[in-house]
């Protein structure tokens, strides 16, 4: 059942992607609107799919690769919709949506059936820890693209050369502000994710911190973002420096989130 919802939502995401790519070449608001509503429908159905899976399986469906990628995409879509409500950043849909679609198609290549939950994951901490971590990661994921765009636009203005598409990009100040928002929302989520993780670890593995690869890398990631926030608030690092730090931070997120599971193993290898 949930898998059908999943495919329907994927269809809407693909539709939205097509709209946004068309919007890139043809600057018509109606196309963007259509893309926006497809994205919104996709998000709602995707949310429903996750909910249905939750009731079918009896546990929070963030336990294997398929479920994780699907939930991660859901968070990205949700946060992007939230940002779109506040800022005029339609054009960023042209980057976010193709990636969202690729993530979901990738997710669908992994086994999707519901399997019994490993005993070690049966805990109240499962939803709390995973949801906080995923939302945090999704926010930083979006800020990564915002930062890339910032660097492109900033370079254009400094070098006094604008590609023809650049007229439609958001202003530097908007991009920087979004980065700041991402930082101030993402960091608390990440922090709570790590703290709840360590509490859960003490329950499940008997120790708060055992320098497992996942734990180590998430600490490194946390430190990177902590430095970034400190510099922003204390020394006034903004603009390009923030963007660079956000990009570096995102690579640490990638290592922690995917790299550790795929290559390093350790205690935290469930997916």
């Amino acid at each position, binding site marked *: 059942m949930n898998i059908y919802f999943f495919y329907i939502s994927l269809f809407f995401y693909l539709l939205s992607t097509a709209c946004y790519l068309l919007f890139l070449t043809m600057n018509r608001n109606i196309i963007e609107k259509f893309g926006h509503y497809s994205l919104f429908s996709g998000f709602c159905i995707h949310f429903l799919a996750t909910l249905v899976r939750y009731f079918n399986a009896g546990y929070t469906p963030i336990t294997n690769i398929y479920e994780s990628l699907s939930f991660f995409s859901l968070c990205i879509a949700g946060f992007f919709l939230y940002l779109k409500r506040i800022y005029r950043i339609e054009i960023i849909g042209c980057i976010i949506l193709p990636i969202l679609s690729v993530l979901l198609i990738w997710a669908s290549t992994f086994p999707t059936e519901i399997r019994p939950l490993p005993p070690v994951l049966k805990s109240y901490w499962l939803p709390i820890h995973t949801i906080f971590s995923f939302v945090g990661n999704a926010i930083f994921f979006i800020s990564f693209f915002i930062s890339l765009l910032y660097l492109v636009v900033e370079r254009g203005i*400094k070098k*006094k050369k604008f590609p023809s598409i650049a*007229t439609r990009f958001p*202003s*530097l*100040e908007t991009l920087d502000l979004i980065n700041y928002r991402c930082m101030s929302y993402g960091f608390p989520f990440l922090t709570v994710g790590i703290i709840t993780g360590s509490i859960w670890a003490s329950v499940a593995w008997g120790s708060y911190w055992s320098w497992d690869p996942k734990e180590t890398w998430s600490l490194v990631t946390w430190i990177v973002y902590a430095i970034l926030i400190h510099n922003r608030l204390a020394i*006034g690092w*903004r603009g390009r420096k923030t963007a660079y730090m956000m990009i570096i931070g995102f690579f640490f997120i990638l290592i922690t989130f995917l790299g550790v599971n795929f290559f390093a193993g350790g205690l935290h290898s469930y997916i």
Partner: protein
Amino acid sequence: MTSDILLLEKNMHINVFGLNHNTAPIEIREKLYCSESDVPVILKKLKDWGLYESVVISTCNRTEIYFCSDDSNNSEESIKKIDAFLMEHFGVALDWLKNYTYRFCDEEAYRHLFLVASGLDSMVIGEPQILGQVKDAYRMATFHNTTGFFLDKAFHKTFNVAKRIRTETRIGYNPLSISSMAIELSKKIFGELNRKKILVIGAGEMCEIALKYFKKEGLTGIFITNRTFQHAQKLAEDITGIPCPLQDIPDLLTKVDMVLSSTGSEKPIIDKELVVSIMKKRKNRPLFFIDIAMPRDIDPEVNHIENVYLYDIDDLKGLSQQHLSDRLKESEKAHTIIEEEVVKFSHWLEQLEKNPLITHIIDVVEETRSNELKRMMQKMKYVDEETLRNMDLLTRSIVNKLIHRHISLIRQNGSPSLLEIMKQLFKFEEENEKEMDSGNEGK
């Protein structure tokens, strides 16, 4: 009423007669410039001569008269009349008119109108003001009742074409003038400018022009400094800014977001060290320098400081060049659109001429509309011109939309029963028909 129908029966031609910056030097254009008070006089004259529909467009780069003529009142004759009138009204020689003007008829005439309204015929290609000027000219003509079915249709079509070109091509996308480019760049950096502050160094003409543009964006603070403080004060009064002495510059730099500089100073006024120290105080909030002075007022090294952006006059001119070549590229697309629309419009006209019932319907409806509008005007006591114009436009567009369905039905489905219903509906009497027939035979 009947004569009107017969009139539409004959082939109507849309004509344009005029001159522009390509065909006539400024001395001639000056002579033939029609001021706002001239236009009604000309429109009235043309009407008296039996030109049923006419519109006069007059800007600093062009003077054009659009009019309708039919086969009896052929365009050659009308043009002779116009020549005579212009010679008399403006006191110009006939060979001037012959040498410096152009005359187009039918397809070429409305193609020309499309080109003009979409800015493709302008001196600065793609400039947006011309569309407003064409709209004003049309409103002026409707206000003096000198437009009729054909020019109404032609001008409404023109506004559509111009809008289509605005949205489908990027012809008016990038600004060309120094001031609007400075605004555009500021928006690239800051987004909306309504909470930003600007510091102006120098109170010359360049600054004044640019400031007027900035003012429209709703800045919250305008600080003006100048070597001669009185000049700063004067400009500040004109533009409701705050005059400041020169030595306040370092202080002001920590407050403002943009700096516009245009002084006659030989040496740079703002150097890199100053800006570096200021950026620390600003906590790196972005700062945008626009240096339109020659020699430059701001050390070019400043552009290398993080979150500081500097554009000097050469950068702006280079950008303007680039934008101009973009516009030329886009104008090709616009020309294709215009050709498309020209074909559509001439097709529409052809079809219209064939059917007396259609012209009858149009007339009946137009008569009702104008009568109702007049009645309404009499009832309403305090109507300003703007409302009057808008009501006129509104009713026109409602009526056009309503009868459009009937007309397209008649065109698509010419079955006798349908035609009969339409004839009854619009009281298309046999008498009229007979006259039509005799008219046709006469041809």
